[in-house]
């Protein structure tokens, strides 16, 4: 029996050989860092210095870190706003586009809304930081133009506005691939469903909430997972725009990890923060997979 199993493996050796590059790359550049992250989190380690085993001291230190509460609060607010935004704006826009009667117009709008993705993310951040939120930027100059001088402020340097200013980057949030994904979901709803709803007297917004939203639930779910995961680990925007300031008012855990690793050279501590965030992301993903059913499941349940 054992012999024949070996034989099938040998017979299929070409298959293993062909997928070998995939596994070689994954092992070196994904698996090794993954394991290393956990291992390093138990050491005090600086580049060029000796690594000393310190057990769970890094984790203990992080639990009493002064940035812990503010950074998780900021992360929560940013992610929450992000989730709301990613559901409401692209889905609304996709629905509007889908409701047009001309096929050609629908196609053109989809292309037009896709165009902004050609601008690199870093450039978008810098445009918002340097041209829109700056002292004599678009927002403040518009306020001056309409005579609301009192409302002008340094949007990113004011502790009260910085979080919301960061959240509003990309307003009106209707560009990119999100619209296409929602649009694909809307387009896959069979006409008969709409006709049936029409006969039952559902129209306009009510019909949208009762028919469209439940039927694009799997797309909404995908967007929400991606936004939450991105929100927990994202810090690029804050790194470019505010560096966590003023004070810790826009500090997020990922940024603190970055600073510990690459500014303070505390690699072990940074890895511990990374593991901390990984556990949170993993828990959220499992909860999401387990408790939020996709539209297929809902349909099957009926």
């Amino acid at each position, binding site marked *: 029996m054992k012999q024949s199993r070996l034989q099938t493996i040998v017979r299929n050796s070409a298959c293993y050989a062909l997928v070998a590059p995939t596994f070689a790359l994954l092992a070196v550049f994904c698996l090794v860092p993954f394991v290393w992250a956990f291992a390093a989190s138990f050491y005090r380690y600086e580049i060029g210095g000796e690594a000393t085993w310190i057990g769970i001291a890094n984790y203990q230190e992080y639990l009493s870190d002064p940035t812990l509460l503010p950074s998780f609060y900021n992360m929560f607010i940013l992610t929450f706003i992000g989730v709301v935004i990613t559901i409401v704006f692209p889905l609304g826009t996709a629905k509007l586009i889908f409701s047009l009667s001309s096929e050609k117009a629908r196609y053109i709008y989809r292309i037009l809304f896709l165009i902004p993705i050609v601008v690199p993310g870093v450039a978008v951040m810098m445009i918002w930081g340097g041209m829109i939120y700056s002292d004599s930027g678009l927002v403040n100059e518009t306020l001056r133009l309409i005579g609301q001088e009192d409302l002008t402020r340094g949007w990113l340097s004011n502790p009260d506005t910085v979080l919301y200013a960061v959240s509003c980057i990309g307003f009106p949030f209707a560009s990119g691939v999100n619209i296409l994904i929602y649009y694909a979901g809307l387009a896959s709803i069979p006409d008969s469903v709409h006709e049936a709803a029409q006969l039952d007297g559902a129209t306009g917004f009510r019909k949208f909430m009762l028919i469209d939203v439940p039927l694009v639930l799997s797309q909404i779910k995908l967007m929400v997972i991606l936004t939450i995961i991105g929100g927990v*680990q994202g810090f690029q925007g804050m790194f470019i725009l505010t560096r966590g300031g003023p004070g810790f008012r826009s500090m997020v855990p990922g940024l603190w990890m970055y600073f510990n690793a690459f500014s303070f050279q505390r690699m072990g501590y940074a890895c511990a923060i990374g593991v901390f965030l990984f556990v949170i992301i993993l828990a959220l993903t499992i909860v999401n997979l387990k408790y939020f059913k996709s539209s297929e499941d809902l349909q099957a349940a009926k």
Partner: protein
Amino acid sequence: MKHRKRQDIVIHSILFSILFLTMLPFVFVVNNSLRSNTEIYHAFFGFPNCIRDMTRFTIWHMQNKDDLIMLKMPTDSEKTESVRAADVPARKVPYDEAMSHLWKETTKGYRYSWLVLRPYMVNTIFVCIITMLGVVTIGSISGYIFSRYKFPGNRFLFLIILSFMMIPHVLTLVPSFLLVKRLGMLNSYWVLILPSIAGGQVFAIFLFKGFFDGLPEALFESARLDGAGYFDLYWHIVLPLSKQVVAVVMVITILGTWNNFLWPFITNSDAKYHVVASGLYLMGQSQVASNFSTMFAAYILSSIPLLILFVYATKPFMQGVTSGAFKA
């Protein structure tokens, strides 16, 4: 029918305002990239002076009123004495000379930022192409094997690959840096390419396998009867039928590589290996940033390669995404 038309008009106007707001920042970037610092400080909202003058002069020129053309253009001696621009008197200048002077002034930001960005641009395009080829080749071959061949461990190995999607970047950022440092790959092209292929192939394999699963088995059977091997099937059947999904993977990979900022920024301190994203950030941190038009021009220049890609890849990409590959 009439009701439908009225509804269309309402939707068009709403969509148009959303589109207007989306594009507004970029309109200002283009506009202000053609204006000098003085102009921007003087008034944030405003049309570029140079362009205004050029149109005015051209109209006068066509009306044969060349003697109206007055321009504050420094002479050679004033240039060597570096007289302040505001102190240069306006004088009569021939049309051609005035136009070439104004053209130079308008495009100053672009010419300067191109000088800075060009090496970064070459690096990024090189890295993007190699990464894209790597992801498409490795991803499609693995996707094809997992989709079309039954061998011991097939499902298990595929699940292992998928499980790598669960590893967040934030966890591996620091140890990946330590790893490439240990491997001696800091400040090289390797560090920009290999980790991106390793990470990018996972989602690619997922997409490829999903698509290949949908190809009719009969095609493969008849080809196999004719004695076609792994490579023949892959090259003559799988790839020609999969242009859409290949386009999607290509676009996703290029977008990801082009937008990747932190990794190149951390791993390459040598200016020789900077990519556009990290280069833009460093421009913003340097002296150059005090010159608005140069920065604005840099944002535009850094978007042009993707705009060109966009023109060619939109159609297959949209078809690919719309075919419903993205669901949870």
